[in-house]
């Protein structure tokens, strides 16, 4: 093993494999592993089931946000249809599990593949369109998928919804919040590692090249259209897996949650977290989930105090207001998101006391 060393005060890398390393220092790796273990044990031993529930939702949203970040943050294609692909994954898992009796461990990746196919189909307009035209095309895709989810009744049972069977993993049922926590966090870690490895391969580099300048990328011999479709596919795969996990966790699904609002929520996660940052996707997901849970808790407390009666509608109103406000404030004041805040904090520690 190499000697331990601290993080240098600047970018002093000399070889490519230093650039490719996932953890820059051995301390970083050790800290991540110890922190992860501490988090796992604390979450399972100390936290109540409501907190674990929030962790689970954060993990599921993080998987979806990671996928969207590959598409928006790394490839530069704006998609307003991510919520629909999430829904395709959820319905894919539900149909596979109820119709074909496919077990949990295969249903989740299979649902991801179904969503990936849907994403690649709705990514086809990206062959001719870019920028805001592509955004509008994905918005149309969102509405069309939403319509299909509600009205393809022979498959999705329309507004009745589908109830999923109990997920089983190696003969153990994963219904309880804590057991689900282990499953979903292991998947999240795998997904994070997959993404960070992806960005170190030629595929990831090609995505970044397309984002930065698509004509230059084409000139360098990257088949832009193929890589864009691939990016749509990968991003929807993540969304589909997240949707499948969500469907199993919620045990019953209808088409209602997979609307434009969900797509917007995912884009908000990616922007608030930080475009083109893997850690940022997790931060953004955590921010949005904690925000909406806090708002729910706040309104519940106010309602139970019964100072003000007739406030049933205000939860939705305040939620909308705060949600919009957080997007707008982040865009105006910190467009690079929480990942940038985190980087600034870290580099302040690193460079202290000679911060310039």
């Amino acid at each position, binding site marked *: 093993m190499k000697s331990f060393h601290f993080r240098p005060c600047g970018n002093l890398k000399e070889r490519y494999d230093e650039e490719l390393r996932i953890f820059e220092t051995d301390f970083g790796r050790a800290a991540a592993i110890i922190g992860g273990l501490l988090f796992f044990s604390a979450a399972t031993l100390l936290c109540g089931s409501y907190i674990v529930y929030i962790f689970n939702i954060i993990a599921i949203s993080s998987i979806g946000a990671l996928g969207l970040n590959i598409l928006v943050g790394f490839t530069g294609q*704006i998609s307003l249809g991510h919520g629909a692909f999430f829904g395709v994954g959820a319905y894919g898992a539900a149909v596979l599990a109820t119709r074909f009796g496919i077990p949990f461990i295969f249903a989740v990746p299979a649902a991801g593949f179904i969503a990936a196919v849907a994403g690649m189909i709705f990514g086809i307009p990206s062959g001719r369109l870019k920028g805001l*035209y592509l955004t509008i095309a994905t918005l*149309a895709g969102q509405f069309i998928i939403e*319509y299909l989810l509600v*009205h393809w009744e022979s498959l999705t049972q329309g507004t009745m919804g589908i109830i999923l069977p109990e997920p089983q993993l190696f003969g153990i049922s994963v219904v309880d919040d804590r057991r689900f926590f282990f499953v979903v966090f292991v998947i999240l870690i795998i997904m994070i590692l997959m993404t960070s490895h992806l960005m170190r391969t030629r595929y990831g580099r090609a995505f970044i090249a397309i984002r930065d300048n698509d004509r230059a990328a084409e000139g360098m011999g990257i088949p832009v259209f193929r890589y864009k479709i691939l990016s749509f596919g990968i991003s929807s795969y993540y969304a589909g897996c997240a949707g499948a996990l969500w469907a199993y966790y919620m045990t019953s699904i209808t088409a209602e949650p997979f609307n434009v609002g969900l797509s917007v929520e995912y*884009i908000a996660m990616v922007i608030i977290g930080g475009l083109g940052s893997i850690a940022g996707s997790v931060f953004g997901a955590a921010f949005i989930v904690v925000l909406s849970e806090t708002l729910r808790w706040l309104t519940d407390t106010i309602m139970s105090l019964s100072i003000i009666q007739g406030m049933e509608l205000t939860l939705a*109103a305040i939620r909308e207001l705060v949600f919009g406000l957080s997007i707008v404030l982040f*865009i105006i004041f910190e467009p690079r998101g929480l990942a940038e805040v985190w980087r600034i904090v870290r580099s302040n520690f690193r460079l202290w006391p000679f911060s310039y």
Partner: protein
Amino acid sequence: MEFFVQILINGLNIGFLYGLAAMGFVMIFKSSSVLNFAHGELLAFGAFFFLTLVSAAKLPLPVAFMGALALCFALGFVVERIFLRPLIGEPLIYVIMLTVGLASIFKGLMLLVWGGNLYMFPPILPAKLSITFAGITIPPVYLLSTSIGILFLIFFGLFFKYSSQGIYMRSVADNQSAALSLGVHVRRVFALSWAIAALVAGMSGIVLGIINGVNVHDLSSIGLKVFPVVILGGLDSIGGAILGGVIIGLLESFTGGYLSASLKDVVPYMALIVILIIRPYGLFGLVEIERV
């Protein structure tokens, strides 16, 4: 036959309303290249201002109408100044998401102030104005909306053609840096175009509110219906917005009448994808889209 004509008239009318709603959207896009996802909320604000001025402040109708338009104008001005100005030159996704965030804020504000209920206006036009022709009745609001639409189209046509502010706006839309070097106050033009667009949006919101009643969710969903309309007509063509609106309206009402009522809402988006693949610049849009 009667059914056909009734659907035709409904479609034309809905289409005209879509066209009106799209007009404001196109104005914003034309001068500042901002894709405004908060357009439906601007419509709703117009309708709610009018509603409040009519039923709470008990103003006479023309005064209330002018007052609501003035409030919308001010709202557009303020929105541009506070939210859009810092983002000039930023990447597209931030601008788009900012308007999405604005849409959320507006919706939240309206839900807080007016709630999610459906409000109806007191009957504004006497029923005897309706035209009965060969057994088909055209309600007076339809005539009102059509005539207001044509009036605004003519007014803004003249405004863009002859007034100095209109010419400034066109010059900024055409070439921003050239306009800047010729002494056009580009920032003022942006502010003015947002204000005018909010005014037009408010006006169409009022007309929609008179016809369908005022409800936050219904009116803000119109904002998303605008996209097929403007893509069909061309993102930077005001006349195209009206024509696109009429075509999409007809498509919607014929699908609703002859195929199925549930397909009605999604057909415009299917058309949208087809248009985007075949002719992304629409009927009258400027052919400048880059093929990748």
